[in-house]
C-alpha cells in the first residue's frame, strides 16, 4: 500500500483533538491521584491516609479542557505558524536601541537614590539587585566567555565573605584593606579549583564545580572553632567613608559634613559602593574581551582543540578565567559581609549558584547588558512575589521555561565581534543553527 493515510477516511480534527486531550487527562490522573488525591495525616494512633478525590477530578478536568481547547485553537493541525518569534528587523532595531539603553540604565542607577520619592526599601532592593548583577557579570567571564560551566560559583562568594569577616574578627582589619585581600583569596581558590578540573568539560566540569561549592559550604559549617559553624559570624564591621564612620559620633560622616545624622547615609553609601564594584567588573570584562586573553577565552569556548593547535596555552587561559571570575565573586562576597554585618553558611547554598547561573543563561551568555537585565528581572521579580512566596518557585520555573522557548539563547543573543573590518555589525543569534553556534 503506497499511502496508508490516504486510504483510510481522515479522522475529523475534533476526534483527534479529543483523543489527545483524553490521553493528557489520563497522564494527569496518574500524576494527580497519588500527589493530590492522597494525603498523609498525623493522628493520635499514627499516620492515616486522607482521600481527596474531588481535587483529582478538578485537576484532570482542567488538563482535559485546556488541552482540548489548545488542540482546537493554537495547536490545530495546518495552522500557519509565525516564522520566528522576533523578526530580524525588530531585533536589529532593538540592537540599535540597546546602544543607548546601557548608558541610560547606568545613569538611572546613579540618579535613583537621589530622587525625592525613593524610599529606603527601593535602595535596599537596588543593593540586592546590583550584588546579583555583579555576581552575574563575574560568572559571565567563566561561563559566558570561557564556556566553563561552573555550578559552584557561590563558593567564591563565600570565600570572599568569610575572608573579610575572619580577617576583621581576628586581625581587626578594615573593609578597605580586606576588599582586595578577599578578591585575591577568592582568585587563589579559583586557581585551586581550576587545576584538578583542567581536563574536564561540560557536564563533568559542572558536577565537580557543584561538589566544590558544597565542600566549601560544609567546611564552613563544620569548622566550628574557626568559622563559628552554623552560628556564623556576627558583628562584622561596617565600611567607613575614607575613615569616617557612619555613626552619631562627633567624628562621624554626618557631623564632619555638617549633616543631620541619618541611617540612610550608610545605605546610600553601600548602594554606590556596589554600583561602583559592579561597574568595575563590567568595565574590566569589556576591556578584557578586546585583549588577546579575552579572545582566547572565547575561542576556548568555541573549540579547545583548535585553540591548542593555534598555540594557545589552554591551561593558563582556563585558570585566568577561573581566577578572574572568582576574584569578582570575592569582592561581591566581602561587600555582602559588610552590608549584612552577619554571615552564616546558610547564605551560600547551591540555590544561590543556580540563581546566578540562571541569570547568566537567561540574560544571554556573554552579553553584559542581558545579564544585567536578567538580574533585575529575577531578583526584582522575587521581591514582587514576596507576598506569594509559596508560588515563587513555580513562577521562577515558568519564566525560565518561557524564556528558553522564546529566546533559547537568552534575552540578548547578539554577540558583537571584538575585532572589525571597517563597519561594526552585530550578528544575530538566529542566523546560526541551534547547537552549532
Amino acid at each position, binding site marked *: 500500500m503506497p499511502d496508508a493515510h490516504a486510504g483510510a477516511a481522515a479522522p475529523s480534527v475534533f476526534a483527534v483533538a479529543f483523543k489527545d486531550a483524553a490521553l493528557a487527562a489520563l497522564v494527569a490522573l496518574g500524576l494527580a491521584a497519588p500527589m493530590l488525591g492522597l494525603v498523609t495525616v498525623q493522628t493520635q494512633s499514627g499516620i492515616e491516609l486522607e482521600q481527596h478525590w474531588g481535587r483529582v477530578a478538578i485537576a484532570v478536568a482542567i488538563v482535559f479542557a485546556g488541552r482540548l481547547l489548545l488542540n482546537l485553537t493554537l495547536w490545530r493541525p495546518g495552522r500557519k505558524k509565525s516564522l520566528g518569534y522576533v523578526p530580524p528587523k525588530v531585533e536589529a532595531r532593538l540592537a540599535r536601541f540597546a546602544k543607548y539603553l546601557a548608558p541610560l540604565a547606568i545613569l538611572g542607577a546613579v540618579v535613583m537614590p537621589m530622587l525625592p520619592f525613593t524610599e529606603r526599601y527601593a535602595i535596599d532592593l537596588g543593593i540586592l539587585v546590583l550584588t546579583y548583577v555583579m555576581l552575574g557579570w563575574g560568572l559571565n567571564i567563566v561561563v559566558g566567555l570561557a564556556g566553563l560551566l561552573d555550578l559552584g560559583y557561590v563558593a567564591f562568594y563565600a570565600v570572599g565573605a568569610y575572608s573579610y569577616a575572619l580577617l576583621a574578627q581576628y586581625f581587626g582589619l578594615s573593609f578597605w584593606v580586606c576588599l582586595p585581600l578577599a578578591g585575591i583569596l577568592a582568585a587563589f581558590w579559583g586557581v585551586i579549583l581550576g587545576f584538578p578540573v583542567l581536563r574536564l568539560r561540560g557536564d563533568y566540569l559542572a558536577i565537580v564545580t557543584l561538589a566544590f561549592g558544597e565542600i566549601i559550604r560544609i567546611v564552613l559549617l563544620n569548622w566550628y572553632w574557626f568559622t563559628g559553624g552554623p552560628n556564623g559570624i556576627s558583628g562584622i564591621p561596617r565600611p567607613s567613608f575614607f575613615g569616617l564612620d557612619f555613626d552619631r559620633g562627633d567624628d562621624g560622616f554626618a557631623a564632619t559634613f555638617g549633616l543631620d545624622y541619618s541611617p540612610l547615609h550608610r545605605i546610600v553609601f553601600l548602594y554606590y559602593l556596589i554600583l561602583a564594584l559592579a561597574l568595575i567588573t563590567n568595565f574590566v570584562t569589556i576591556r578584557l574581551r578586546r585583549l*588577546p586573553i579575552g*579572545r*582566547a577565552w*572565547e*575561542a576556548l*569556548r*568555541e*573549540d579547545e*582543540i*583548535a*585553540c*591548542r*593547535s*593555534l*598555540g*594557545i*596555552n*589552554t591551561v593558563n587561559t582556563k585558570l585566568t578565567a577561573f581566577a578572574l571570575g572568582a576574584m569578582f565573586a570575592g569582592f561581591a562576597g566581602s561587600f555582602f559581609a559588610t552590608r549584612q554585618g552577619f554571615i552564616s553558611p546558610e547564605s551560600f547554598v547551591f540555590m544561590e549558584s543556580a540563581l546566578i547561573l540562571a541569570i547568566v543563561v537567561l540574560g544571554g551568555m556573554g552579553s553584559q547588558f542581558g545579564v544585567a537585565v536578567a538580574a533585575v528581572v529575577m531578583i526584582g521579580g522575587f521581591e514582587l512575589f514576596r507576598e506569594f512566596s509559596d508560588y515563587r518557585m513555580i513562577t521562577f520555573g515558568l519564566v525560565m521555561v518561557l524564556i528558553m522557548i522564546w529566546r533559547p539563547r537568552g534575552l540578548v543573543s547578539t*554577540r558583537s*565581534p*571584538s*575585532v*572589525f*573590518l*571597517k*563597519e*561594526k*555589525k552585530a*550578528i544575530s543569534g538566529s*542566523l*546560526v*543553527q541551534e547547537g*552549532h*553556534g
Partner: protein
Amino acid sequence: MTEPLLSIRGVTAYYGAIAALKGVDVDVGEGEIVTLIGANGAGKSTLMMTIFGAPQARDGAIVYDGQDITRTPTHKIAQLKIAQSPEGRRIFPRMSVVENLKMGAAVTGYAHYDADLQRMFEIFPRLKERANQRGGTLSGGEQQMLAIARALMSRPRLLMLDEPSLGLAPLIAKQIFAVIAELNRTEGLTVFLVEQNAYHALKLAHRGYVMVNGRITLSGAGRELLEREEVRAAYLEGGR
C-alpha cells in the same frame, strides 16, 4: 637529500589498546609538498595529530628542524612555526571571520597582523566579503579557506593540511589546491598534505606516501605513485 625539515621515525600511537600507527617513517623536506594518502581509518589523521602531540607518540621520534618534539605539548609545537588546518576545519563558529584570523596570529604576538590580514584577503577574496560574518555562517568551502588562512596567519614554515578537499565541490577543491601550489612555488612554504582525494593530491605533491592500516606501504614521487598499478586500483579507479 639534506636534513629534512620534519622527520618521523618509527612512530607508534595508540587509542587505548588499539594501535592506530604501527611504526611510521615519513620525511618532509624544506620547500616540499608531501602528501599522505590512504583509505578511511588508515591512520592519516592520527599521524597528523601525533605530530602535533595529541595523542603523543608512544614510541619513535618526531624531529622538526633538528629539535625533538615527540614529547612537546601541542601549544608549544604551534609556537615552532608549524601550523595546522585540522580535520573538520575547527573554525570558531560564533566568532567573526576577522576574529578567527586574529586568533591565528596569536602565536606571533600580532607582529605582522595587519599586513598578513591583507595578504589573506588577497589570497582568498571571498573571506574579505565575509569579513564580519560569523564563521559558522560560511559555506563549507569558505570555512575551509578560513581554516587554511587562519593557519597561514602564524607565518608557518610547515603547513599541515588535513583533508582540505573534504566535502567540497570539485571546483572549490581545485581552487584550494591551486592556492597551496602557489604558496609553495612563490614563498617556498613546506606543505604536508593528508588527503583522500588521491588523484589531486598526488598530482600536486612532489612526493607521496601511501598508508594502509597504520603502516606506510608505498612511497615515491607524486607522479610516479600516480602511475603505479596498485595505487590506481585502490585509490583512483572510479574514484576520480
